[in-house]
């Protein structure tokens, strides 16, 4: 069942059946903010999959919704209790802001506490902390960063962490050259009745921004920038098992 829905979701939206823990979900929705208050960054983000009439808690996305705009929700049903926000918890999850306008809506806390903020696992150390230099021998290696739908912004407390790891390794490994390839999920797909596709240019924008970031950190490194459209999902650990996330990426390949 799990396997089947994974395959289905790659090809088409999930049909109107109740999802099970671990199932992959992908839909477009207008987000609702629940004003739960357990201190800073503790509010809830909710999104309804209108095809099945179920409300999901998408608060754990590394990039969060804007209450003025639609979101593309991608992720898996976690099976965690609904106690924090009062909706089915998706984890891992991604919530990309789309250009379509939405009616702004905020719910009161209604007794839900939200989640007290904890620093995500992927967070960059302050510049003052000396990075442990990775040890050789060094050989060809690829690092991957991930992006929000149709954006080239290096996501805070997610991709900046992955970038920092890459830069720290590159600084020690001193490869002959680095190839930075930006990918765009530019093939149109229909999600919740919306035809969505990333702009082809975002592949180049991603590659250029990441190239510029690496260049700023390691000015002497030789970097070649490439881009590819029509990106396909790939099995990459930091995409957290979300196929759509794995498509929206930049690869940093070190060559010796």
């Amino acid at each position, binding site marked *: 069942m799990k396997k089947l829905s994974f395959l289905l979701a790659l090809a088409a939206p999930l049909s109107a059946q109740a999802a099970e823990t671990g199932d992959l979900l992908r839909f477009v929705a207008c987000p609702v*903010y629940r004003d739960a208050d357990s201190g800073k960054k503790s509010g809830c983000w909710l999104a309804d999959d209108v095809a099945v009439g179920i409300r999901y808690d998408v608060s754990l996305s590394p990039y969060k*919704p804007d209450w003025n705009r639609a979101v593309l929700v991608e992720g898996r049903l976690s099976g965690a209790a609904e106690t924090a926000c009062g909706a089915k918890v998706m984890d891992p999850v991604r919530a990309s802001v789309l250009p379509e306008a939405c009616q702004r809506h905020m719910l009161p806390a209604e007794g839900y506490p939200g989640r007290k903020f904890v620093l995500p696992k992927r967070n960059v150390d*302050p510049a003052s902390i000396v990075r442990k230099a990775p040890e050789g021998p060094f050989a060809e290696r690829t690092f991957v960063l991930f992006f*929000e739908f149709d954006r080239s912004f290096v996501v805070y407390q997610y991709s900046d962490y992955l970038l920092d790891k890459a830069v720290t390794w590159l600084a020690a490994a001193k490869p002959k050259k680095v190839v930075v390839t930006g990918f765009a999920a530019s093939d149109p797909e229909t999600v919740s009745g919306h035809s969505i596709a990333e702009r082809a240019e975002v592949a180049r924008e991603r590659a250029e921004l990441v190239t*510029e970031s690496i260049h700023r950190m390691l000015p002497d490194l030789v970097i070649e920038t490439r881009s590819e459209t029509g990106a396909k999902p790939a099995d990459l650990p930091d995409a957290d098992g979300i196929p759509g996330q794995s498509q929206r990426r930049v690869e940093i390949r070190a060559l010796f």
Partner: protein
Amino acid sequence: MTDRLSRIPRSIMAALLLPAAALALAATQKAPPPPWWSPGEGRTFPAQIDYRNDSGTLRSLLVGGPLPTKGHPFFEPIGSNGRACVTCHQPADGMSLSAATAAERWDVTKGKDPLFAAIDGSNCPILPQGDRASHSLLIERGLFRIQRPWPVKEWQGKPVTPDFTIDVVRDPNGCNSAPGYGPAAGNISIYRRPRPVSNFKYLLAVGFAYDPKQGIALPRDPDGHGQSSGNLMADNRAANLRLQMEDAAASHLQLIGKLTPKQEAAINDFEMRLYTAQQASALGGALDSAGASGGPAKLRDSEPGALGSIGTPVWSEYAAWEKIPPEEAAKLTSEQLAFRKSVARGARVFRDKTFLITDSSGINSPAGFGNPVRNSCVFCHNMSQMGNDVAPGQVDLGTTTLPFADPWADLPLFRITCLKAPHPFYGRTFFTYDPGFALSTGRCADVGKITLQSLRGLAARAPYFSNGLAKNLRGIVDYYERRYNIGYTEQEKQDLVNLMSVL
């Protein structure tokens, strides 16, 4: 001037200060040098200098000892209009310039002070310069005219094509539409407060290598000193102090030619040695007593660039005043005790009282925090000891942009039209008094972003925000209250005001 010095009764002042500080102050009181520093006076800038203000005493420390200012390019009128850097960055005014001081200078000199130079000390050079009304923005709101090229052609060493247009909707002073002025003539005039020239160790510190607001690594310093903090100037047009002083000398001082490397080194030396903060409170006493560590010595002695949320909490300088032991309390008047408790609560309110931050680009977009996001003052003002932003602090609070900015008939108003994607919160067309950061980057999404300032020495340099929107400290709290509908209690508002009065 003398009026300002005597505003606070001596008896209170003496009671406020630690014995050593009181002695130092008593010594300076014998022949108090005038607070106003005129260009080229040749005074010596002492290692420690105190100035009174309505809230107490401001102190500056010059690390490395006294500086004879004779011949020093920060203090000499090296340009062609008789001004020096110190004209607009006055020690008594927290190294900025308060509107009250500008008004005083107008009255004392009948408008002859070079401060009022037509170039930027008047609403516009085309106006009759002898009229007070032609300098109203400086006298009433402490604003100087800043003229920037438009359209901008280059940013961080790369060519730029702006993705928005600027139309002048209203031009009360002429500097955006008279011949030679305004977007049609290749420039734009906006009006801004002088930013304090002190505590630069903090403003230049690079806490993290990546900019979470722009989603990219910090740029390299153009002079090869690591990365740029991105925290200078309202619009961040200067990447470092050298570029800033070259801009300042050419514009504010009307220097013909260039600063010499020696002059640049001398200005940099002075700027990097200076620390400024409130040292004593008229209501609460010495700010470094009873376990508190207010005042500039703490700034001088701390490591810059630390994020308060993972280290030393912002304004924990006053944590000891949360619980003042009875034997300490016995030494204070009940007013002093109450004030100190209020300051300590204010620091808590600043850090812990959360509200929904909405539609503020730089925070709510594109950083991924979400719109809205629940947080407190310290979310943006997050650097330990300083309260500026550890990351490059370009955020749109709405201070310069409608509908959040106050309606002001005497400022020019511009219509912004985004040519590509609409602005994430304002839409395709909207109105601003100052596009801020977007004048540097050329990006519509950056319109209205203003770099967060230092929060030190506030008591000495009203009004506040880049366009002087808040007349006094209470005005700051009131702005945030109406901008974000925070719901502060009257007590919390007063606690925040008291806190800000001792920074």
